[in-house]
């Protein structure tokens, strides 16, 4: 497989991103390495071909945002909004991720090996997110579809005003948000969890060690008794 190298100390990020936005038929199956990312914003955003991008260090804000098809690996940490609004493909952060990882993501898989910040998977719309460490407060806020798997702990207000996304937590939850409750895991959900653990490189982790959370569906329609919860 052909590997192309870009050094962000020598080449402007805009040129690298423009290259990555090129004709999909020329990029499919190619490997691209980005050296010296040094926390730059918007690295590898808007990709739309089956290209493999490896970022050799720490990325800034919105890395791999709006991703489609591509596989992006960040060898360091990621700033706010990694894989935000991802449509498909795989984004793998080997370090930690800052706030709002996978915000509004529609599809694809985001794997974070370390911790993730506040508002992880906020307004998730169908993507899968697997966090090897813990997540900050207000994660999965108003999450509509998709799965958030947390191997560590969750902060305050987990799943506040959640719709139909599923949350699996192995550690402790500091507090649940409004209308989020613990669920019993069905065989189908257990399979979803086991598959995601395998895809994220955690096949050694027992799916039965997780608790599942989801919507109590009491806020779907306005009811005067719930006025205080809105």
């Amino acid at each position, binding site marked *: 497989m052909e590997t192309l190298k870009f050094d962000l100390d020598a080449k402007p990020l805009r040129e690298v991103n423009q290259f990555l936005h090129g004709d999909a038929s020329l990029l499919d199956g190619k490997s691209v390495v980005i050296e*010296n990312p*040094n*926390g*730059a914003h918007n690295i590898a955003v808007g990709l739309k071909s089956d290209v493999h991008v490896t970022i050799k*260090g*720490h990325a*800034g*804000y919105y890395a791999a945002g709006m991703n489609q098809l591509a596989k992006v690996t960040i060898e*360091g*940490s990621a*700033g*706010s909004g990694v894989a935000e609004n991802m449509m498909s493909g795989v984004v793998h952060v080997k*370090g*930690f991720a*800052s*706030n709002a990882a996978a915000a509004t993501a529609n599809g694809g898989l985001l794997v974070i090996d370390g*911790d993730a*910040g*506040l508002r992880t998977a906020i307004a998730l719309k169908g993507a899968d997110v697997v966090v090897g460490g813990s997540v*900050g*407060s*207000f994660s999965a806020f108003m999450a509509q579809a998709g799965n958030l798997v947390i191997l560590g702990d969750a902060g305050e207000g987990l799943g506040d005003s959640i719709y139909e996304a599923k949350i699996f937590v192995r550690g402790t939850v500091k507090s649940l948000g409004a209308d989020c409750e613990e669920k019993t895991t069905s065989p189908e959900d257990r399979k979803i969890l086991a598959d995601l653990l395998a895809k994220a490189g955690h096949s050694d982790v027992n799916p039965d060690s997780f608790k599942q959370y989801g919507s109590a569906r009491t806020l779907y329609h306005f009811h005067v008794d719930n006025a205080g919860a809105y």
Partner: protein
Amino acid sequence: MCGIVGLLVRNPKMRDSIGELMLPMLIGMTERGPDSAGLAMFGPSVAANERKFSLYSGTADFNWTKLGHDFEKHLSIKAKVEPKVNHAVLTTSLEPETVKIWLKEHYPQLHLLSVGQLMDIYKDVGTPAQVAERYDFKNFKGTHLVGHTRMATESAITPAHAHPFTAGEDWCLVHNGSLSNANSLRRKLQYEGIEFETDNDTEAACRFLQWRMREGDDLETALNHGFEELDGFYTLLMGTSNQLALVRDPFGCKPAIIAEHDDYVAIASEFRSLAHLPDIKNAKVFEPSPKEMYVWKL
């Protein structure tokens, strides 16, 4: 927006180049804060009976020599004045209250930026690179520092509105964020006899901590009161004679990233300001949790 940077040099051999290490950190935060910049530098101490007074004149043609002569003539006491463009550091053994009264009476146009034995403050409008060049930040020597790049969102762009702010001797604070209850805090604190120099929201946070510490709080207790009373978004970085301290608001709205290394501790709003630091690959890089206090001592 705004950018913050902090650097505490643990390796004594590297302290002579703290200015050089810091400069790319400050410039790295230009996009976050292009309109003004400031730096509090903790350098070698003056003699035990002396204090340094960081002064700002506003104009480059200010006659600092005359100020020194007037001071010595009127008060019959020695003073050293070291000018740097429109800033100067006045060193004297006269007690601070007398110096403040004298300055107010004879040089009301001067701003007193800080008082202390270790800390000098420089702040001005301009891009971080321009401000750093103006005051030769690159050649500063010392143990630790706190810097700021400002993008004004709630009050005017003037040197006085730039950060750092001080709340006592050898004590300074910079802020990234915005406070929504700065005006009510200011009114409340004015009743407590706390004086304000600007309508800046960061100054309100700074004066709040100053008031709490006046009332006997240590820094940690003061900051815990701050979590209850400061309404808004903030990452606050503080410098004292022998430490740096950092807090983020409970919602983690404003960023911070930390690199801990055997030789140094570096703090910035974003990793871009830390990337150039020596051996950064072997530093422990992490994001501080909201509503927690982080302290690094010399």
